[in-house]
């Protein structure tokens, strides 16, 4: 992958530390600036490369906050987050973040295709414009997600499911290795759900690592390798009979 000559971040893109897990968070606490209340309290998470891990919990349990902290979008007040062995922000190009739909101004006059193209910007940096290879991967991914007929449509005129697929397409064209997906299946129709699930399975087969915030308890066992349960900003015990899978929480993170 080519490096941008004028990257957006302060740091140059760092190389992976050999043997490091895709994501290792140790006792991470985080909260809004100026507020004493913590949205995350000493949460730990270890995600081996290639795994597909679910973050499970009710609204306000800290799922989104944890994903944002890993993406460098939320100030961490304590603990440590390492992505491929590097501090947050050193691997912008390898971490793709899919936000919840509400974070975007959908009235903005931009087409679906341009929205998806913004996923390539991390590889371009300042001043460089998307080239032919960027356009190719964008149109291929839009096609994969069944959005081709809508490519020129203004993003506010898409349905909720189409918007969600557009955001996933953007996360995919970044060609990141660690995907942080904040409720990609929230409020989408059955068809979109199937499309997205299929895409995520394909990604895992290609060795990508995924951390997915989800409400959907039924698909945990069939679609995920492990799950971290959160409640009120802390790690919670899985309920009786709940899916466990690969250990990813406090014990796994501190085992080394």
């Amino acid at each position, binding site marked *: 992958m080519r490096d941008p000559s004028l990257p957006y971040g302060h740091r140059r893109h760092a190389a992976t530390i050999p043997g490091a897990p895709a994501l290792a968070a140790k006792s991470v606490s985080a909260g809004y600036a100026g507020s004493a209340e913590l949205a995350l309290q000493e949460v730990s998470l270890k995600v081996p490369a290639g795994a597909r891990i679910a973050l499970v919990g009710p609204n306000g349990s800290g799922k989104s906050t944890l994903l944002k902290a890993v993406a*460098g979008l939320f100030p961490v007040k304590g603990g440590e987050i390492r992505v491929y062995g590097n501090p947050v922000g050193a691997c912008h190009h390898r971490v793709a973040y899919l936000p919840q739909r509400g974070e975007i101004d959908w009235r*903005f006059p931009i087409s679906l295709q341009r929205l998806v193209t913004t996923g390539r910007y991390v590889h371009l940096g300042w001043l460089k414009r998307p080239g032919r290879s960027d356009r190719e991967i964008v149109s291929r991914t839009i096609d994969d997600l069944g959005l081709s007929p809508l490519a020129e449509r203004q993003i506010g005129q898409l349905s909720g499911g189409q918007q969600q697929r557009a955001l996933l397409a953007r996360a995919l064209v970044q060609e990141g290795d660690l995907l942080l997906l904040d409720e990609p299946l929230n409020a989408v129709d059955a068809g979109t759900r199937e499309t997205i699930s299929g895409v995520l399975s394909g990604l895992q087969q290609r060795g990508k690592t995924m951390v997915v915030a989800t409400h959907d308890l039924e698909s945990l066992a069939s679609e995920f390798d492990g799950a971290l349960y959160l409640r009120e900003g802390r790690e919670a015990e899985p309920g009786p009979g709940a899916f466990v899978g690969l250990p990813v929480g406090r014990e796994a993170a501190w085992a080394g």
Partner: protein
Amino acid sequence: MGRLTEPLQFTFMQTGLLAAVLVGVTCAVLGVYVVLRSMAFIGDALAHTILPGLVAAYLLGLNLLGGAVVAGIATALGIGWLSRRGTLREDTAIGVTFTGMFALGILLMSTANSFRDFSHMLFGNVLGIVPRDLVLISALALLVLVFLFLFHKELELTSFDPVHAKAMGLGADKVRYGLLVLLSLTVVAGIQAVGVVLISALLITPAAAASLVTNSLPRMMAISAAIAAFSGVAGLYASYFFDVASGAAIVLACTACFSVAYLVRVLQRGMSKTAG
């Protein structure tokens, strides 16, 4: 036809027309971002806050535009600083800064012997523009348009999805400050055309009209620029033939274009409703 070309034989009309079109187009293109990022209030505020810079430079015998640029940039940074980390809501910070600076400008004016000297700052005098000003206005216009062209993708992204920008290490603040500085420069260039009080109309009205009739950003910029250019010419002609204030005539021409765009939008909506 003879009547329409009659004003063009005067040099002051030629210079004025060129200046009005240049300033209008710059404001209109930048204004698209002002409208889409809901920065209308800060645009208006910046226009008012450069008044003390202009007046102080005038009283001290310094370069007027230099004074205005300094005051504009100081305000842009000051508002950002006051509202950082949510100490104050941004619109409150803008309200406090802008009224204070405008009052300072008026206070400084009152220390001068005559208020008359300043009326062209408040209300503009596009027909008083000399070729030397025109060079400066062209340079500022070029600078703003080149910046918008070079940083189009960053401006676009931070406007509709600052979170994604931040996730790739592109701080929306950097872009925002850059935009505020550009806004100051544009406002300074536009002061001579329509004055401190009406400059925000050139920033907002053409872009708002364009946003009503298209869903594409480049087209919005083109339509906004066309409206501003047309309004500059129409306003100056009205000023020439009916002997009215040029700045106000230009702004009212923009307002008329907005009204037409609004009407078109309402009719389109009505038609698509009956059709669907």
